[in-house]
């Protein structure tokens, strides 16, 4: 069942949290709402769940308008950040509560609970109270509670944020598996781009109550539509440098720290753009260390070197206060304050308009 938002907005008092969203979550896709704290992603999820009332606009599930319905009547399931297990009930009662409310008889209920518990490998915990469970076990109970009802829409609000890093990595894979098995439309809220990139079919990057970009993880990473998306996605974050369009040998070039960089082939700049100021974006992975005498490289001095496991981050200061980070193999060594030059992978460069923040149109 698809979820369609039409001109949806939400304000708390004078604080406008969501601004006229138009968005369709396609059927059976795993969609992630990704953004920093306070961008409105959880509010959006709660609107879809029916836990908040919209200030304007409409929500449709599979063509049927639902925003006047109570959460109970939307056939949704939701996993909360805090898991929100019922503290006075044991695990079996927690998982079966939704079935009990819907009037299912006890024997049938315990059979269904048993099946779900088996899938989630929590069969041995059914008689325990939530407080006697570990974080990962609680997480599974919360998932079980959502799965047992065969919901049309599966909502998850940062379900992994309370787990340790190792368990989080395992659960990412499992959640994706459950999504495929359940064959529902899943909407997942997170501020963790790794979760968004690894699990999603589609990512909606949100900021200040507006969806900045709604696309596949590849698209969001490779072709960010604006400075916010470019800066938010990717780790370490994208380098941004102010550049000026100039003319060199009859063709437009980008002037960066006194060096002329050829305009990347995917962008078309003309004589008319001469003198225009742009923002050049390049991911650290697309910056390499070049020879000092390379004419296309930008020279500078090494400002900081950090080892991050199999890679090393080298920050080169090419102009006062302008540092470009390069992610290179750990074998590459560089001494702090030594001269160094950085060169870019042309095809991976991004150009943005500093005024609007939007990416320049691309030819590819």
């Amino acid at each position, binding site marked *: 069942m698809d979820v369609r938002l039409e001109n949806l907005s939400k304000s708390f008092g004078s604080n406008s949290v969501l601004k006229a969203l138009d968005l369709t979550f396609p059927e059976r896709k795993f969609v992630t709402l990704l953004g920093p704290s306070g961008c409105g992603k959880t509010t959006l999820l709660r609107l879809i*769940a*029916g*836990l908040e009332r919209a200030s304007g606009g409409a929500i449709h599930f599979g063509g049927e308008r639902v925003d006047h319905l*109570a*959460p*109970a009547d939307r056939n*949704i*399931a*939701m996993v*909360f*950040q*805090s898991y*929100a*297990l*019922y*503290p*006075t009930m044991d695990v079996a009662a927690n998982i079966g*509560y*939704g079935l009990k*409310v*819907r009037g299912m008889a006890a024997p049938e209920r315990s059979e269904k609970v048993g099946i779900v518990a088996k899938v989630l490998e929590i069969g041995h915990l059914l008689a325990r109270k939530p407080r006697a469970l570990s974080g990962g076990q609680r997480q599974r109970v919360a998932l079980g*509670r959502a799965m047992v*009802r065969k919901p049309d829409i599966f909502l998850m609000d940062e379900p992994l944020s309370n787990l340790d890093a190792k368990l989080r990595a395992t659960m990412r894979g499992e959640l994706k598996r459950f999504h495929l098995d359940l064959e529902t439309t899943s909407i997942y809220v997170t501020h963790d781009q790794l979760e968004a990139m690894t699990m999603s079919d589609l990512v909606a990057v949100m900021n200040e109550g507006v969806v900045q970009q709604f696309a596949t993880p590849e698209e969001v990473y490779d072709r960010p539509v604006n400075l916010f998306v470019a800066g938010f996605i990717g780790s370490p974050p994208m380098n941004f440098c102010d550049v000026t369009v100039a003319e060199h040998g009859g063709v437009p070039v980008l002037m960066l720290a006194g060096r002329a960089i050829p305009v990347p082939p995917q962008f078309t700049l003309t004589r008319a753009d001469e003198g225009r100021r742009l923002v050049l974006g390049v991911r650290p992975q697309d910056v390499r260390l070049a020879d000092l005498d390379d004419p296309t490289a930008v020279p500078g001095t090494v400002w900081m070197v950090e080892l991050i496991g199999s890679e090393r981050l080298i920050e080169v200061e090419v102009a006062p206060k302008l540092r470009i980070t390069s992610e290179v193999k750990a074998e590459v060594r560089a001494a702090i304050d030594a001269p160094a030059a950085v060169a870019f992978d042309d095809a991976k460069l991004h150009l943005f308009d500093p005024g609007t923040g939007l990416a320049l149109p691309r030819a590819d």
Partner: protein
Amino acid sequence: MTAKEWAGRIALYTILILVTIVVCFPLIWAFFTSVKPKDEIFLWPPTLWPNVWTFENYTSLFAGKQAYFQGGSAASSAPPPSAFFLDWFLNSVIVAVGTTLISTIVSTLAAYSLTRFRFPGQRAVPYLALVGYMVPSIIFVFPMFLVMADLRLTDTLLSLILGYVCITLPFSLWLMWAFFRGVPIEIEEAALVDGASRLRVFFEIVLPTAWPGIVAAAIFTLIVSWNDYLFGRVFMNTMENLPLTVGVMHFFDGTHVDWGLMMASSVLMTVPMAILFALLQRHLVAGFGAGAVKG
């Protein structure tokens, strides 16, 4: 365990036993006094363990008014105070249970609404309630007596119930408010998403979770309304309508004090509360603890 640890433990237990004896001694003394014959109570040197055991104090307390009238005594003379003991006991039970029911139900619902709905003054109410509780009840009792007189409720158990609700509700409200604040709203939302109605969420999710808090508030109310003397003294005057606390004072009658009856009544007043405490102390600690930490 090493010798040092043993020594520490023995010292600790010795202190605990001594403190327990000090605390319990009046109760123990009251009990033994209540089972002594009248002349032994004033024996010097006093005996702790009675030389002669008697339950005459208890039998005269339990005899009731009927026994007195059926005994054929002259109707011209009023029955002795001990004949009213069962009335007083029943009055105290009615008042304490009535107050506890009203105060706990009202404070639970009020506190829930204070933590779950948004309205002006939402933050101020619990604190004002706490301030209200800090005002000594002697300040309330006379204005309240005038109100009860206007309502023609004086000398009725209802006046006592209303009076005790007034003095216990603020603290119960504050306690429950602190408790509900610690109950995450997500569990209610999870139940709503699971398909439950608001009312069902309240009864099946919220109330069981808040149970320790409710028990704590109820016990507090029960103790206050069971032990209070002031309101009973001011509001009530007919012998039959007195609560226990005020009634037993009639064992002092100007010329002599009947310590045997006094102590037997004290024991009978203490026993129900002690049993209740023993049964509920687990909830009580959890309730006060949760309220204190999370509030």
